[in-house]
């Protein structure tokens, strides 16, 4: 009964994806005490604020979503700055010597960011200043974190929000009506999913190719992004029911799904599914499948 493997690239592989040799390793949460606490606090706070503001959201989705947008953006950038290594920072101590080995999920605990945080703007080559003293970084770290934070906010607004709006429409959001709702919902989803991704990965081409192909190894950032998308997709489920409840109106359930999905994805990504990838071919079984 076995159907022969149709493509030459679907042979089962024991290590996770050496066919993508330039892949960046999964990104762990920063090891500091503050980061660890805040990385749990932030999703909890997000959910509680969302729950508290839910009646207002149902009453007037547009104005509520618009009002919450800057607060969410601020909160999320703070979360990224406190808990995540900024783009360009060296996550793995042995990065330049053997990139393939770091790709494996075993790098989980050992990854300790050295603190020398360098933004890599655009596609200009890596400026690796690994030798700079760790102590000097203390004050400048926050300054160095600010640049990727600003970059992530800009790109989230300019690129991620339009992209997610288009994706929402492709996945069934109204095309001729509810434009403001779609845009605001996409903006919320963009902050949840993309801000951290851009903050961590900058504009690293190979990484974004992986993201486009859904091939990133699991971590808090990618888990949160994928979780947001899957949650929003699942959020469409109650809409056709004939309960005639006000919260069944178009963007509300999608948004609720996105928030829940973000939290779930973040938690799963940094724990159970850390370093695991979605696989679509009939290869080894790993990761999770949406649906």
């Amino acid at each position, binding site marked *: 009964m076995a159907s022969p493997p149709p493509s030459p690239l679907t042979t*089962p592989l024991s290590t996770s994806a050496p066919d993508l040799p330039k892949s960046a390793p999964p990104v762990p949460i920063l090891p500091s005490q503050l980061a660890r606490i805040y990385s749990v606090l932030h999703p909890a706070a997000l959910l509680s604020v969302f729950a508290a503001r839910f009646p207002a959201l149902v009453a007037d989705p547009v104005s509520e979503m618009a009002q919450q947008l800057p607060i969410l953006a601020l909160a999320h950038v703070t979360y990224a700055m406190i808990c995540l290594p900024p783009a360009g920072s060296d996550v793995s101590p042995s990065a330049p010597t053997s990139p393939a080995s770091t790709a494996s999920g075993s790098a989980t605990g050992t990854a300790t960011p050295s603190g020398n945080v360098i933004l890599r703007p655009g596609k200009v080559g890596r400026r690796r200043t690994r030798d700079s003293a760790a102590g000097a970084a203390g004050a400048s770290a926050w300054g160095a974190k600010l640049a990727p934070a600003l970059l992530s906010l800009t790109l989230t607004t300019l690129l991620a929000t339009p992209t997610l709006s288009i994706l929402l429409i492709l996945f069934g959001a109204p095309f001729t009506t509810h434009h403001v709702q779609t845009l605001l919902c996409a903006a919320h989803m963009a902050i949840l999913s993309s801000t951290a991704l851009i903050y961590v990965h900058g504009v690293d081409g190979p990484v974004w190719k992986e993201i486009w*192909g859904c091939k990133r190894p699991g971590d808090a950032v990618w888990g949160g992004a994928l979780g947001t998308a899957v949650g929003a997709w699942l959020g*469409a489920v109650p809409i*056709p029911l004939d309960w005639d409840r006000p919260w069944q109106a178009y963007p509300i359930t999608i948004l609720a799904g996105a928030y829940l999905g973000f939290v779930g994805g973040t938690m799963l990504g940094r724990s159970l599914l850390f370093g695991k990838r979605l696989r679509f071919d009939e290869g080894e079984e790993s990761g999770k499948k949406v649906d």
Partner: protein
Amino acid sequence: MAFLSGSWAIIIANVLTPLAVLVFSSGFFPYKPLIPGLARFEDDSNSTVVPKAFDKVIFMVIDALRSDFVYSNNSGFLFTQSLIRSGAALPFTAYASSPTVTMPRLKAITTGSIPSFLDVILNIAESDTSSTLAYQDTWLAQLKAQGEHLVMYGDDTWLKLFPGMFERADGTTSFFVSDFSEVDNNVTRHVPDELLQDDWSAFIMHYLGLDHIGHKAGPQSPYMVTKQYEMDSIVNNIYTSMEQEEHLQSTLFVLCGDHGMNDAGNHGGSSVGETSPALLFISPKFQALKTFRQSPTDSHSDFQYYRTVEQTDITPTLAGLLGFPIPLNSLGVFVPELLDIWKLSSQKIHLLLSNSRQLLRKMKETFPNHRFEPHSNSINCETEPLPDVDMAECAWVQVNHLLYNSGGVDKDDLYPELESALLRFLKLAQKVMGSAASDYNLRNLLLGLVITFFVVLLSFPTTYTLLSRPGHAGTFFALSILSYGGMMFASSYVEEEQQFWNWAFTAWAFYLHGKTSIHPRCYTSSQHGLGNCHRLYELVLSRYGAVALLLSHRVLRRWNQTGQKFAAEPDIARTLLPSHRLIFWSFVALTYADTCRHLSNRCLSRLWRLCCFTVTAGAFLLKLSYVASDSPELLPETIFAPLRRMLGGGSVIIFTRLVLGGIISLVPLSMYSSKTPQQPLAMGVFSSTVFHDALTLFLITQSRATNIPIFLIFRLHADILASMTLTALELAITSLLVQYMTFFAFGGSNSISSIDLSNAYNGIGNYSVILVGILTFVSNWAGPIWWVSAARVLRLKQAQHERKAHMAVITFHMAATLMSVMAACTILRAHLFIWTVFSPKYLYAMAWTIVNHLTVNLLGEALCSL
């Protein structure tokens, strides 16, 4: 060998399926026997106590006469509205329960009972005579028994229901929906003669044109108001005669619709538009009642104009007004507004009492545990929340109490109280009897369910070996079956099933995206014609196939709004295309051109190309002529007028047959004209692709004009899927998903009213159940049929065992979905929506199983692999 037994299991499973459907249906649609015989007055004095108010009745049914067509501001019934203002016409909205199709509704109007759901099927299989009412108690039979004469003109459903009932009759077939005027002229030409005759006491007319306009062009069509003016002029003629002719002095004129229509102009379901036909009692005598009503009124979105009565109320009302006993099976209540035609209160009470006693007999039969006797107070009527049956019993006890206390029916001061008590009982009894569950044969239901479960078990092992392979396609398949199965228990998800398939399809497109973006290379190698990566189209398809799939699916999703909740929202087929005719026609022409290109690309013979071109051009002209006759609003006037002249006359049927013959002969012709000797395998590939393209042309012919551009999207989808390397399981899942998804994209839904009959008579001269049935199926399942064939072309290279795996997967899917629908219908058999939502879904599940799965999928596969 395990493998052999596997394929045998699949064969046995598919053989068992029709049996399961048959057994379950026999339990689910029980034959409800009605009480035979004719009702008589309990004592002969009865007829003298209440003298009849009218001698004759003119009963005019206008098919699909929704309430707002008569009552609203933009109605064409101007004369009728003036009658309402003058008080000569008493207007009502008559609630027509589901199924809102003609035959069950006529049964309700004539017997006063609520017909079983089985009548829907019998309504479609129109030649069936088992559903005759010849031996049942109807107001027609009562009149006939009194030695009166009846005449009938219009829908021949009446002639089938009442064979031998009419002195004079002229039937018209109700199924040629493309005819707007001839059906009605055929009735109207008899009206002046019959109005001069004085031998009849019931003159029945049934006009079909308005329904045909609804089916073809919808309630907003410009034809609709014209037709309303025409009908109004007939009402005017009849009313004028009633005022002038001596022998029509004591005549009641009833004008009613048998059912309404929804916003798309179809009916059969339970939406408010479909269940709200108009009902008017008209006579100059009513002016004496001095009930002046405002008319016309503003449009109501709920279609409830004036007071809403039950359609079954017509029967007892006619019985009272014309002075004959109420038919035995009636569940109707005399319309209280008409009571005032009698002066004496005792007569009114007497009439209501006889109506109550008749309903009470029906209730005692249905609820043998309840005795309905005044002194056997087994229940406490004081406790507030009572079941409806007990409430009815209490109401009857109260009636008896009043009667007993009044010592007969002669104390004037008690009358108003007694009248309201009687009406209260009647209303309660009607409610109880209307919602009383029909007696299912539970044993057959369970037996059918068990057989289906066995089918699932039989197909499970083979499917399981496929699903258990690593990879997420199996998980996706299992989850989609599980969620679909769960969904069948929720009425709103059944109504909005298209949302599920669209939703699942987006996830599947995401899966395909993830799968193909691993190795974004071009896999369209030699076997796909000119497949070669240098071409931009194929490069784009192979890189961004899944995105293109999503994009085109989003367009497809909006093509036809369907379901219940969002059905009225604007979409492409009904809103965008009619207002952008140039775009519409260029897409249609492009679809035909693309089909012709695919056909003629297959081989190089010039004769063959000529044939292809001729047949495609013929098919295109044929579609033009259909559009010209059915939906002229799609054609610009400059084209429409000459086309109409050119195609006038009865040549369309012959033309259709010529085109169909041409399409059918393309396949053998292609064999003949391909000169190069080919190997058997290549020959097989060749003939199946030609078959697929010829089938495309046929399906286009059978589709509504506004749906034709969908086939372009199908081609794109098929090209995208061909550029991906999919396993047998993935192909089977894709095929199933797309079959269901496209069924709804063409405008299908799980409501009877969405069955599209506009292409069911193409090329048919005389009504034939089988041919019309086949054409109806093809025109409604065009999308699924196309995809079964397209998936076959995609699967041409599959090895034998992969084909068997495909069969196993689709059999398992069929059995699992059928079982979930059956289980939902069994468990929810007492649900409020069982006849409006779940039963239609079961009928659709039957069509999916028997016709789409067994015939199209399996038989098609078997025939093609011969």
